[in-house]
């Protein structure tokens, strides 16, 4: 679904669903579980995501940072799919295409 379609209630539900121990932050484990639904990503990627969005450096991700992460991930996936015309999980892009694809998202 496009980021613009994420309704506030849905975002709240998303957080509610992911933050299983209701701590108000999303732990590494909770994030792994959440992202394993729908996206197939390597363990290395989970580490990178934590690093990128763990603003407080505590190995946890605050709720709003998690949402930002999901939105960025969704937009990047959408744009990847648009370029992956044969749907084989690979794209070939030039330097300028690459910049144009991602620069407005990150």
């Amino acid at each position, binding site marked *: 679904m496009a980021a613009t379609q994420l309704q506030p209630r849905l975002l709240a539900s998303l957080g509610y669903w992911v933050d299983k121990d209701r701590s108000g932050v999303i732990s590494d484990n909770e994030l792994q579980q959440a992202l394993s639904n729908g996206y*197939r*990503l*390597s363990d*290395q*990627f989970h580490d*990178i*995501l934590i*690093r*990128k969005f763990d603003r407080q*450096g505590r190995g946890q991700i605050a709720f709003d940072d998690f949402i930002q992460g999901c939105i*960025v*991930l969704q937009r*990047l*996936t959408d744009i*990847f799919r648009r370029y*992956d015309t044969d749907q084989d*999980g*690979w*794209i*070939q*892009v*030039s*330097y*300028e295409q*690459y*910049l*144009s694809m*991602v*620069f*407005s*998202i*990150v």
Partner: protein
Amino acid sequence: MAYPGHPGAGGGYYPGGYGGAPGGPAFPGQTQDPLYGYFAAVAGQDGQIDADELQRCLTQSGIAGGYKPFNLETCRLMVSMLDRDRSGTMGFNEFKELWAVLNGWRQHFISFDSDRSGTVDPQELQKALTTMGFRLNPQTVNSVAKRYSTSGKITFDDYIACCVKLRALTDSFRRRDTGQQGVVNFSYDDFIQCVMTV
């Protein structure tokens, strides 16, 4: 394949990547380097600084000139741009690199900020990026300019954030362009990782 970079790069492929500042191991006379003073004042025993400390360092050094000092998010971006070992910190040599690059970008910004307001408008941002050698399509620049604008203007700090991201994205693309063709094949996972590490 020529990758663009800081102002004055002339579109040439630059191996070191940053404004002519020397990289590599510490050089003699480091402690006499005026920059070292700013750095040492905030770095701890480990000789490394994180984003918070970088913010303090840059503010004290006055590199922003008459402009507002850098916000923390921009400092985080700057650390990640140079953080090759993914430690979340930078040492003195990286700081020197950053300093040279920031100076270059600042000079470039000044040349477009004709009314000395500390801001540029979206058209000026596009010109600034183009003259740095980045050929982005108008839609991309438009959406970037819109994203960074406050009341239709882009501040120095946001311009720096833009430059940092472009540098980091360029680096990550270049590392994968082993054939120097200006083209890269990305798997989905690699694509996401590449972009997320910016």
